């Protein structure tokens, strides 16, 4: 009865822990993805030759922090601008320009970095390159994203820590009630001549078993639900499919399962050792 309660508490806590662990990880990965979409645009000096452009491209590609370099011709730039700015209702506007591309001089490289924090350094480097007229980067976007990223990191760590502390607190609370119920049993054993070790043994074993069962149930549950939930969200909210890319199950549970089990067993073990010790002084 009391072990059951301990297992239930353990399971509930590890379930919450696992749930938020997966949520936070996915969330971080979405922000990370958004972050990678923010690049800088490199414009060239007027009347530059294609060879020179290629040379600049190669120099940029050689940098380790660069993830991707994309060449955008002047025509592409104009098309992109039109659809970005006027949606697909730009016909009226187009008449005003006809064969007169206002961005004629605006072929460019779009450069994406692996890590938004490296962007500033890369920009200073590109500025030194010959033939580069200008670099446009969305300072605000980059800075905002980098901040959001940090903030989410903080909040994530805070949530996980709070959940951890609360879980440990709740579980040891339950284990300690469960064992204090057996206080008189423990004292009888000791008075019959049992050593601390002999008394502690079964309780420790019980703690470990409670830990394993109490961790296995929620972890198993989450494991089976995770993929289902991802699929459900992606089909139900198909618009999001482009920028929500769920972290693969294997990747999350590779970490979550050992962490959960160690947590469960650790708390069960420490909880029972500490609480039994309290009652052993007979």
């Amino acid at each position, binding site marked *: 009865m009391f072990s059951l309660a301990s297992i239930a508490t353990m399971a509930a806590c590890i379930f919450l822990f696992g749930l938020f662990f997966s949520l936070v990880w996915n969330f971080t990965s979405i922000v990370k993805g958004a972050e990678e979409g923010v690049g800088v645009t490199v414009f060239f000096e007027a009347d530059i030759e294609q060879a020179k452009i290629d040379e600049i491209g190669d120099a940029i590609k050689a940098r380790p922090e660069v993830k991707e370099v994309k060449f955008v011709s002047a025509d592409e730039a104009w098309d992109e601008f039109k659809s970005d700015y006027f949606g697909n209702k730009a016909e009226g506007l187009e008449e005003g320009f006809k064969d007169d591309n206002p961005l004629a001089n605006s072929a460019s490289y779009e450069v994406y970095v692996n890590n938004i924090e490296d962007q500033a350094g890369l920009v200073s480097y590109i500025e030194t390159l010959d033939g580069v007229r200008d670099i446009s980067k969305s300072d605000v976007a980059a800075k905002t994203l980098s901040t959001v990223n940090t903030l989410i990191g903080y909040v994530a760590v805070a949530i996980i820590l709070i959940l951890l502390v609360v879980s440990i607190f709740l579980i040891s609370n339950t284990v300690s009630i469960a064992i204090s119920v057996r206080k*008189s*049993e423990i004292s*009888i*054993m*000791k*008075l*019959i*001549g*049992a*050593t*601390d070790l*002999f008394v502690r043994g079964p309780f420790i074993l019980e703690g470990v078993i409670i830990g394993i069962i109490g961790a296995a149930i929620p972890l198993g549950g989450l494991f089976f639900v995770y993929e289902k939930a991802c699929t459900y969200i992606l089909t139900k909210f198909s618009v999001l499919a482009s920028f929500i890319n769920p972290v693969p199950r294997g990747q999350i549970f590779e970490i979550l399962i050992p962490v959960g089990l160690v947590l469960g067993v650790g708390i069960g073990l420490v909880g029972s050792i500490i609480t039994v010790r309290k009652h052993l002084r*007979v």
Partner: protein
Amino acid sequence: MIDLDRVSKAYAKGQPAVDEISLHVDKGEFVFIVGDSGSGKSTLIKLLLKELEPTSGTITVNGQVLNTMKRRRIPKYRRGVGIVFQDFRLLKDRNVYENVAFAQRVIGYPSRVIKKRVPETLRLVGLAEKYKSLPKQLSGGEQQRVALARALVNRPEILLADEPTGNLDPGNSYDIMKLLEEINERGTTVLVVTHNKELVNTFKKRVITMRRGVIAHDEEEGEYIEA
């Protein structure tokens, strides 16, 4: 075997439950401890088991001074002492067999020995058939006999029995006391706390009479002396 030197135990300020008792019991003796309710008999027994620490005085058992005994040596000491508690103290979640077997497991007897000794001892106290019952499924007297079986199963050097027949009918009580006498004759030192005047007077052993924490009488082949 057992030596108490001016031993006192006070639970609180005021009149101590055991008050400067000095006492010597030889190896192989059989001692009745009698006295009014609240005169300190159970306290004395608990001191001998080192369940309680004396407030002052020295207790020596088998050459070992209990006061200074190291914590990790206590289990070993207690294994040499068979004890029947006044309130039985059986393990609630184990059946009769396991309650008795527990005393043997503690010492690490091989299960071969346990399987032989436990039923044997249960037969001795007349509970052979109830070995599967939980304590709460037993009558008061049956629980008391389980407690006794647990104390006897290891054939201890010293047996401390606190009111071992309080819940037993005269016939059963006599049989149990006879059993304790037999065990005593095989070398065990036996201390029995009892209120059973008839038995005390029948068995003619040493009788220690306690009154308000002190020893009022201590007589060989004594009689039950009422206050």
